[in-house]
């Protein structure tokens, strides 16, 4: 149930985020969601795409250093308290969140959170035990 996330190194300067997105778009790879972590000097662009293997190939061929990490996508209610319930559940499991980002679908009042855990398998088990919906790649 883990999702493959592509990360790439970007220099912190104008236009740098555009180029990789263009590489993917020209080849018809769709970006489901993304997140940009930035520091003063560099950024890390994290992408979830519909075909991660092809996405990685395209980006590497375009000269990017691409890292593939397994992240967990979790669905919560898009309403007050939705996130709290999820975090409480994780808190009890003792797994550590390295980082997270969120997006909402344009349908059904649900939001999706992407988590990078230090131990994703423990997290998934814990979430499932609490009836929280962990999404697989096809559902994304």
């Amino acid at each position, binding site marked *: 149930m883990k999702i493959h996330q592509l990360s790439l*190194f970007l*220099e912190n300067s104008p236009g740098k985020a555009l180029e990789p997105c263009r590489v993917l778009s020209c080849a018809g790879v769709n970006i489901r969601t993304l997140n940009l972590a930035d520091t003063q000097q560099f950024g*890390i662009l*994290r992408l979830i795409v519909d075909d991660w293997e092809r996405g990685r190939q395209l980006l*590497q061929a375009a*000269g990017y*250093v691409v*890292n593939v990490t397994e992240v967990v996508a979790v669905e919560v209610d898009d309403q007050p308290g939705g996130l709290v319930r999820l975090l409480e559940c994780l808190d009890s499991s003792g797994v550590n969140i390295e*980082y997270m980002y969120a997006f909402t679908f344009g349908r059904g009042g649900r939001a999706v959170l992407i988590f*990078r855990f230090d131990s994703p398998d423990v997290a998934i088990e814990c979430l499932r035990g609490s009836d929280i919906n962990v999404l697989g790649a096809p559902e994304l």
Partner: protein
Amino acid sequence: MSYHSASAPDYLPLPRMRELQLARLRAIAARAYERVALFRERMDERSLDPECLRDIADLARLPFTTKSDLRDTYPFGLFASPMAEVVRLHASSGTTGKPIVVAYTREDLAVWTEVMVRALAACGLTRGDIVQNAYGYGLFTGGLGAHYGVEGLGATVIPISGGNTDRQITVMRDFRVTAICCTPSYFLHLAERAGELGIDMHTLPLRAGIFGAEPWTDSMRRRLESEGGIRAYDIYGLSEIIGPGVAVECGCQDGLHIFEDHFYPEVVDPETGEVLPDGEEGELVLTTLSKQAMPMIRYRTRDITRLMTEPCPCGRTLRRMSRISRRSDDMLIIRGVNVFPSQIEHALLQAEGTLPHYQIILTRQKGLDAVEVQVEVTPQVFSDEVRTLEGLQQRLSDAIDRTLGLRVSVRLVAPRTIARSEGKAKRVIDRRES
């Protein structure tokens, strides 16, 4: 083990070698004295003449020749042969000021081919090898020097010259290339590009790389060998002396055997010019013992090395020089501290385990020297977590700080953003106003 017949002088007993060297030195000094005005003037000023050479050690009494002598006498001022006997000219690129020009008679070309044959044989090449010669063909001595060496050896040369990396990779694969000659930085570029094209170099028949024209380290060797699935050999040479083929590593990969029956080595203190005892590190000074068109007497190479006199397990009696770690003229003075780019390279290697592509940028900010070391992010060190990359940045700058005692800023840059030269890697950009 089979030996190429050209390699016989590699195994001369020492007394015989010294005799040969002295005889050749006397002849070449006499030739230079008779035919090269600058050399004669300098000898006369010191009341010396070639007859004073009774022993090889007497060489130390003779005046040095420097690169500026070649520039000052540009283009043909140091030639000892009339143009009717000169069959080839080469020239340096002349990135700083005037280029220098070097000349060869037919005999000189034969010597050059001979030492290149011996060099390639020392790297284990033989008939049947298919050698991709990716040194630039042209005024640069690398291309043609290696070319005639491979042909002389009886191996097959592919005169592909430098550049057009994708075609190099196709040729390497399709022609079943077994050895390559190029600069070490260009080979890394090739390996990187091959990876991008989905070609695993370890599956190719390529087994040896003969790398020269820029200094490289043992850690670089590990990277060349692991990325290319080859053995990497260091070859040394310079146009002023002959081109590639002055010295080369053998299978022991522990120092470069100098073809000292043609190029006599001394190591001197770069400040005082005093000859140093064997084993001490200093500037390499070379005297050509057989070159007709342009004899070089005690040429200051600016390369820092030491002579190794211990016998080599390969059986060659030729003295070895340690690999060039730095040049006496690439020293940078940063905030009053003497810095060699090789020290920064060493620090990066220690911190990261492999040598990344890097470049040192010097600027002056409010009157103070500022150093930025740009380091390319590699797949091995890249992470999706910010703190890991910030930690890397910190480790690199700490490592440089410890080595140099100088605070520098390290900037991680995207892969392939530092220019790869197909000739020599440009490690330092000095933007300080002088």
